[in-house]
Every structure is written in structure tokens, then in C-alpha cells.
């Protein structure tokens, strides 16, 4: 039975080419799965039991999930209007603005944490926000979200902009002639058509936020039962010599990420499976 009706007649050379491409896929998958398998072989039942029964680890897991989800929601809230504005409205300095959006992606993670720490503890505006407005971020759970937002929101904004770039303006133009305002054409036409790209950006943002470690250690620290997330728990456990527990937590983190990414792709439909 033909599994791919669109596949053309292939020569041996074509098959060799496909095999070479698959070789790289296989090597990468083997590399990643081999590492995970190594971790699985290293841990023992006692470490798994410790992870599953520890209240601190459950708290860290909960913190990881709610902060990363909150960060993703806030990032999308910014990404959709920003992506549309950068895609559709020409304004002076758009090129510069577009470049600045990408800047946090190339920040070394530690730099992001240091920058936030310096801003909120050493500058007048930062101190005013913390002390006068009462919005405390340094060494606080709110700081986790801020840190994740700084380092991960660019993925959502970039993806949203690309998604809106890919929506043909003629659709919006037709919507305008059919009775839509600019806002109406955005909500009824552009946004639904850019949906997959925006969700893809959300997935990248969540993945980045969920696994974030370096900036968190500097900006919010890792206080048990307060600002501890799974990534920082792994660091704490291995720093006190509990390597099996650290790896068991790492496997838990990988498992959750795998389940979440697969679920989002399945729910998002065929277009997201292609991502």
C-alpha cells in the first residue's frame, strides 16, 4: 500500500539522499534519548520516592507550572498587539524596535538576571516601584514571572509578527470593503489566520520559561517553599550531593515538558504538528 501518494518515483540516488537526511535525524534523536536513558539508569527507586513525596518539590513543581503559564499568558498579551503593530504599521524606528524585540533572545541568561537585579535595587525608578508602589520583585515569586517574561517574551512577539506577516493583506482589505473597521478586520480575519503562529510562539515562550534557571538564581534566588522552581531545585539538590534526586527531578521536568508540548500540538491541529 502506498503510504504517501504525493511521493514521486525515486532512483537509488534519491533514496540514498533521503537515507542521509534520516541519518542526521536518527543521530540527534539517539543523542537526546541516550542522555535521558543515562539519567533513568542512574536514578534509583529511593530517589523517585523522595521526589514524589517531598512537599518542597511539589511546591517547586507548582511554582514552575503557574509561573511559566502566567508568563506565557502575559507574553501573548503583549505579543499579539506588538506583532500586529510591527507587521502592519510603518513608524519611524520600526527597524530598531524590531531589533530590540530580539535582544533578550541573545542575552546571556545571567545578564538578564543581573540587569533586573541592578534595575530594581540600584536605580531610582526600580526602588520607587519596589518601595513606593509596593510591587516587590527581588527575591519574590512575582520576580520569577518578570524574569521569565524578560527572557521568553521575545519568542512570542517574534512568532506573532511572523504570523501576521504571513497573513495576506488582501484578506484584511476585503474585510474592510465588506464592512469591517480596522479593528474588526484584525479580530475577525488576521487573528484567526495568524492563530497557529501565535500558538507556536506561546509554546516556545512556555518552554523557555519552564526551564529557566540562571537569571532566577540571581534575581529571585531559590528559597525553599517560596521562590524555588524545578530548575533551581535540581541545582540545590546536586549542590548538596543528592545527584540521584536531582536527576529524578530533571526527569520529572522533561516528562512534564514532553507531555505538555505533545498535548498542545495535538490540540492545536495539523498545522502545529508541522512546527
Amino acid at each position: 500500500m502506498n503510504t504517501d501518494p504525493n511521493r514521486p518515483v525515486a532512483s537509488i540516488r534519491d533514496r540514498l539522499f533521503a537515507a542521509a537526511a534520516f541519518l542526521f535525524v536518527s543521530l540527534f534523536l539517539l543523542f537526546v534519548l541516550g542522555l535521558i536513558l543515562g539519567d533513568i539508569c542512574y536514578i534509583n527507586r529511593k530517589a523517585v520516592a523522595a521526589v514524589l513525596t517531598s512537599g518542597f518539590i511539589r511546591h517547586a513543581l507548582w511554582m514552575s507550572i503557574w509561573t511559566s503559564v502566567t508568563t506565557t499568558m502575559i507574553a501573548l498579551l503583549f505579543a499579539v498587539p506588538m506583532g500586529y503593530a510591527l507587521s502592519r504599521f510603518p513608524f519611524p524606528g520600526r527597524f530598531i524596535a524590531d531589533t530590540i524585540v530580539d535582544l533578550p533572545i541573545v542575552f546571556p541568561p545571567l545578564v538578564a538576571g543581573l540587569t533586573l537585579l541592578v534595575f530594581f535595587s540600584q536605580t531610582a525608578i526600580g526602588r520607587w516601584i519596589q518601595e513606593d508602589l509596593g510591587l516587590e520583585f527581588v527575591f519574590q515569586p512575582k520576580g520569577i514571572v518578570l524574569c521569565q517574561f524578560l527572557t521568553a517574551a521575545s519568542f512570542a512577539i517574534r512568532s506573532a509578527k511572523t504570523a501576521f506577516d504571513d497573513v495576506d493583506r488582501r484578506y484584511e482589505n476585503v474585510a474592510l470593503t465588506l464592512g469591517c473597521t480596522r479593528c474588526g478586520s484584525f479580530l475577525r480575519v488576521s487573528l484567526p489566520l495568524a492563530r497557529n503562529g501565535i500558538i507556536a510562539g506561546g509554546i516556545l515562550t512556555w518552554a523557555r520559561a519552564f526551564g529557566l534557571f540562571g537569571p532566577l538564581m540571581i534575581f529571585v534566588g531559590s528559597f525553599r517553599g517560596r521562590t524555588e522552581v524545578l530548575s533551581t531545585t535540581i541545582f540545590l539538590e546536586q549542590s548538596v550531593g543528592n545527584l540521584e534526586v536531582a536527576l529524578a527531578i530533571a526527569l520529572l521536568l522533561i516528562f512534564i515538558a514532553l507531555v505538555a508540548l505533545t498535548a498542545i500540538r495535538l490540540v492545536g491541529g495539523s498545522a502545529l504538528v508541522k512546527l
Partner: protein
Amino acid sequence: MICTEELTFRVGTFQLDHLTIDIPTGKYFVLLGPPGAGKSIFLECLCGLRRVDSGRVFISGQDVTCTEPRLRGVGYVPQDYALFPHLSVAQNITFGLRLRRCEHQQLMSRIQDMTQLLGIQHLLPRRIAGLSGGEQQRVALARALVLQPRILLLDEPVCALDEAMRQEVCVQLLRVQQQLQLTVVHVSHNLEEAFSVADLAAILHEGRFQQIGPIDELLRRPNSEFVARFVRTENIFSGHARATMAESTRTRIELGHTAVDVPGQHTGNVKFAIRPDQILLLPEGGQASDSRNCFELQLAGWRDCGAYIRLELTGPINLVAHTTPAAFSPLRHCSRLTAVLPLESIHVLS
């Protein structure tokens, strides 16, 4: 019904240059021109998708130059139709009605009328992705017409269709226009398409109207060499006028070693076109009533084009002539022919 006054729009190095036109109510107007002439931009200016730099646009006597597209009351079908791919056919057609919060009963009645008119009832539950080009075209037309606009703007509506479908859709467009008494502005680069539907036409080139008038006039009386070549006029010549008598109604134009009489008085260099279908062909030595503009020519070749025969004649003047199959049958075996150019077959280009 729809007119522009000195409409100017610049984009990069291109500009629509002071375009003035008046399209009467109920007319089918075709805007012709080569690719890059500015036809689509002009159409977008009419429906408000581009803000004009200067000049004015009037629809039904009202100045709509600064009016939003949604308030202009025009139906617009862009090139490739731009059907919303995330909606079904029915949702596409009712898009504008739902925006206007149309009552369900009225909505259903309008859909039924429009889908019946265009023969697309069976497509309503379908997704856009699976539609053929012709089906997409009719759905796009229904989406624009269901809002009952008085003016319909069509940007290359049949260019994505094959030849047979193109003719069928053109006939349908004309029927719909007449049935709904619409004023249509139809952009095209295809001459046959224009002839099959247009009452009026204009030719746009490099952002300027080259000629505006009834489609037949564009064909018979092109006002410039560009228009003549665009409407595929063959037999375009350029020569120098000899001095004429004051009362003469014709001018002799020198073309190398021969000369042709053209109607009217002219001086200097003159360009003129000879309509191939009005050239009179006789067997060699055939006697014409007027010996002027008679040429003995070699029959270099001929081609059966279905409705007419296209002959290539060489000699002191190289001509292309069209004749009917019946008129060609006695000439078929002649190697030389006499070509007579009546004055009415010659049109001087300004």
C-alpha cells in the same frame, strides 16, 4: 455614478497621474492595460483601500475621497478572490451580513437569492480549500453582491481561470450585471475578455489614461500607437506626408518606394494603421474601382483562425489581411494578389 477628478497617487517611483474619468450608472466598464500600468492601484483608490495624494473620488454624486472603504457602498472582488480560508463558503458569503447584524430570515433569503443567481447552492457547506478556481470566483462574487452594492469592482476576476471557464464566467458576469443593474469596473489585461463584457473601456499605461471610450471605438479608432499596438492592431506604418491641396480630403504618405493615401490633411511624419479586415483582396490583375491604394502583393502565407483567414502579403508594402473562409476560397491558389486599401480602412494615429 462613479467618477474621479484629477486623481493622483504615488507609490515609490510609480504614480497614477491626474486620472479623470466618469463611469455612468449601469455601465460595464473595463480598465485595460499592460501589467504594471496601475490598474489594481486605481481600483484600490476607488474602493478606499489607498488614500489618494490629490484629486477626488465621487460615488453616486457624493465625494467619498476621505470615506472609509466600509462606508463607500462598493462590492470588491480582488485578484485571486481572497476568500477567507478559515471560514466555510456560507460563512464567507454571509461575512458582511453578519457584521451588519442582519436578521436570520433576511440573511437566509439573501443567501438563497445570491446562490441561486450564481448556481452555487451546493457549495455552501464546503471549505474554501477544496474549491476550483471557477467556484472560488463565484463565491467571491456572491460575498460581494450579497450586500447589494450598486457598484462592483472586479480586479482581474477571471485571470486565474482556463480559457473555457473564462468565457463562461464572463457571460455570467454580464448577466449578473444586467440583472442587478450594476455599475461594474472590471480590471483586465486581456482584450478578448474586455470585448466580451464591456460597454466602455479605458486603457491605462504608466499611470495615465491613454484612451477612454466605447470598446468598439478603441478597436477601430485607437488614438495612439500604444493603444493601437495594445488592441493588437496590425499594419501600423509611419511615413512622411507630401504637400496636399487645401481642399483635398486625403494626404499621400511616402513609405520608402511606395506611397499610401490616408484620410484628412496631415503634415510631417504621420503614423497610421490599416485594419486587416477592411482590406479588399482580388486575384492578381483584378480591377478596383479606384486605382489609388492598390498594391500587387505576394501571398507569403496564410493561417486559418476559425472565424477568419489571416493572410501575410509582401511586396512594396507588407500587409496582414483578414478575410472570410468563403472569400478566401477563390484566392487560395493565387501566389500574387491585388490588395485595395479603402480610405475607411485607414486610421491616422495622433
